[in-house]
């Protein structure tokens, strides 16, 4: 019953997610019209945002499984680092699809280590996560030095170039092939017609569906699959019960320890897959430090998304979009800031209708602040832009921490048979 209610709630959230996304695009369009740029809703921006969002999404989903089972995982970064190294190694030896499998196994191995420390030995979860991050970095560097060090193109800090995963155009919508025949590019046709909002929506959709990577499709499919798995199956209910109240779960016959082990290993595998994406789709090579804190941003997406799959997805998109702006011109960044300002002012007005004076004042003034920033600043420096995901996470936490709800026993110390 609980599972059903939660599932329905989660579906409601999915609808809300779509509505908010549509509204977001509308605001972006308006901002574009005002500033006279077009790149904000172009397929290339959308495509880049998607590509940058996927590793964050996978890391965030990794965090979701672990924390839903009650194990805080700040070792995501280390598991992702393992994923990058093993993915490159697998692809180098056997081919790209093996790369994904190796990356996931590498991440899962560090997940196992984290589970061993936190579940079996009851080490503090944060401490273990920090240790995992340090260990993964060192271990991968060691592995590079003994495997890639003497290869052509390889060194202690990078692998030779490896084969990546292919892209596809989706048929009918973005002009992809099906059974060897080409299909019309419907979205591309819409996009070329400069119709207000419609063409912008089509442009973004075209960016998502034209030359999509297979791995992207798989990663996106994991989101609804996780909703189903965690909220619609008995196994999912058991997993979540370990994160909410392991003692009660134990009394109902759930094997809490095994559940936590499985969850943390899934977590590592997903983070490892995020690392594999970086190697096999974005870079085509392993480089030390290529994760650049994305595991931590994934953690941010998890919090931003209130420990829900579609929430993680929206967090990953927000951060991926912010990241993609770094590679666009300063105009695009400015029109994005204008869009943020408009969005905040609208949220402020909405708060008036709810009679929430405090929130009106805060949201409204932040929105006006962004407007002033928009009018005064002609270009936002890249160094500051790279801080946006972290700033957004802090802001969301500071503003909504009362309304975010993490699993009740997340990070709690659990010893089997200790319940009273």
């Amino acid at each position, binding site marked *: 019953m609980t599972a059903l209610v939660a599932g329905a709630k989660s579906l409601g959230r999915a609808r809300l997610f779509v509505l908010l996304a549509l509204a977001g695009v509308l605001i972006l369009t308006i901002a574009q019209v005002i500033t006279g740029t077009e790149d904000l809703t172009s397929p290339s921006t959308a495509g880049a945002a998607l590509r940058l969002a996927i590793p964050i999404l996978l890391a965030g989903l990794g965090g979701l499984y672990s924390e839903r089972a009650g194990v805080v995982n*700040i070792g995501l970064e280390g598991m992702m680092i393992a994923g990058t190294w093993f993915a490159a190694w697998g692809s180098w030896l056997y081919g790209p699809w093996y790369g994904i499998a190796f990356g996931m196994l590498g991440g899962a191995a560090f997940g196992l280590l984290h589970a061993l420390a936190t579940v079996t030995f009851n080490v503090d979860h*944060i*401490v273990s996560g920090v240790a995992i991050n340090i260990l993964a970095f060192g271990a991968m560097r060691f592995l590079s*030095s003994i495997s890639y060090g003497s290869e052509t193109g390889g060194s202690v800090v990078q692998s030779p170039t490896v084969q990546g995963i292919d892209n596809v155009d989706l048929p009918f919508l973005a002009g992809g092939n099906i059974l060897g025949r080409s299909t019309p590019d419907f979205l591309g046709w819409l996009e070329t017609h400069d119709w207000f909002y419609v063409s912008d929506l089509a442009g973004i959709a075209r960016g998502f569906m034209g030359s999509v990577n297979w791995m992207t499709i798989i990663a996106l499919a994991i989101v609804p699959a996780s909703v189903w798995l965690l909220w619609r199956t008995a196994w999912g209910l058991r997993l979540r019960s370990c994160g909410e109240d392991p003692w009660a779960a134990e009394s109902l016959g759930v094997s809490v320890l095994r559940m936590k082990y499985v969850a943390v290993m899934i977590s590592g595998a997903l983070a490892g897959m995020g690392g594999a994406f970086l190697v096999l789709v974005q870079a085509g090579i392993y480089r030390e430090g290529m994760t650049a804190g994305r595991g931590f941003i994934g953690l941010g997406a998890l919090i931003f998304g209130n420990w829900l799959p579609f929430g993680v997805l929206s967090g990953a998109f927000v951060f991926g979009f912010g990241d993609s702006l770094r590679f666009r011109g300063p105009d695009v960044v400015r029109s994005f800031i204008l869009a943020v300002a408009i969005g905040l002012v609208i949220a402020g007005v909405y708060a008036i209708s709810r009679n929430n004076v405090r929130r009106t004042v805060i949201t409204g003034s932040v929105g006006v602040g962004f407007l002033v920033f928009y009018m005064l600043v002609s270009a936002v420096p890249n160094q500051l832009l790279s*801080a946006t995901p*972290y700033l957004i996470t*802090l802001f969301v936490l500071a503003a909504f921490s009362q309304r975010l709800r993490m699993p009740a026993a997340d990070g709690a110390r659990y010893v089997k048979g200790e319940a009273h």
Partner: protein
Amino acid sequence: MKGGKLLTTVVAPLIALVISFAIASLVLLLVDIDPFFAYSEMWKFGTTTESLISMINRAIPLFVSALAVAVGFKMGLFNIGVEGAYLLAALVAAWVGALFSVTPVLHVSIILVVAMIVGAAWNGIAGWLKVKRGVHEVISTIMLNFIGFSLSAYLFLNFFQEDTGSLITATNLIPETGWIPSLNPVLGWFGVEPRAGSELHGFLVVAVFLGIFYYYLVSRSRFGYDLRASGVNASAAHASGINPKRMIMTTMLISGAIAGLVGMSTLLGFTHRYVQDFPSGFGFAGIAVALLGRNNPVGIAFGALLFGFMERSSLILDLKDVPREIVTIFQGVVVLAVVIVYEIVSRYAQRRAVAAAARATAEQENDREVVAI
């Protein structure tokens, strides 16, 4: 009780070290390298005068960083944000220090105070967010680290960087009055004459004082009592009149102020300016050292020296065809091993204490029965 304490503070780290050496040896054996050859080469190279000086120099920032982390740990606060705080503090302190020149001691003090203020302010944000908005400090300090990296890169490239006339991007050179002199003359009194270019950083003196200050603060002061009480049982501490919010805020500020000093031995003793590749990573390594030293200043000093020794002595391995990265594996393993072993040992000590108490009670009962008869 005494035995239990000895077990957890001394025996646990020792077992962890043995395990870590065993694992590192195993890894070396797997890639066909004789571990004893590697260790003996490291020992030979690591115990020369120059290496020992380098070891201490490398240990200083780790020691300071670990103290910053440990202050938080004592009350159950995780300050992961030392990394961002010390880089930002080093940049601002380098910039301020290069603006003027006064008498040496005063100049150095001003630079140190600036660094402490910046560090405290930066980590204070996390304290404020926790106290006022209920944001967990682990997440906020992780985010603040990255924001700190971006902010310092931005400030450095746009405002603080000066034309040095060469290819290195750096801030202006701090005038010589703002330098901390090396301790080589002191070494000379003891007849130690290191080769040219090998200098023992004078900041060592500050670090030692910081260690003593930490000891008195945590173990001998009212604040330290409150700190430890809050760490052991927050609600009991609250009930006994300790204001938890104020404790969190104060602890974060102290931790941040110490964190601000992490980069100072490098800045004032070596580079004398903030350079683009200013050494990073001390903040994260400091967490490892604090865990290794069990938040005890002497333990932390040992941990920092061990890490310093490993890093210095591993330099020889490249010449001997042994992957130097074995040291980073060792450091990672030792942290995980120490926390796991500590957990097991303290459980064992607890069981022993419970058993001893049970025995004592049983004996008392027996005595009473005898009297009754």
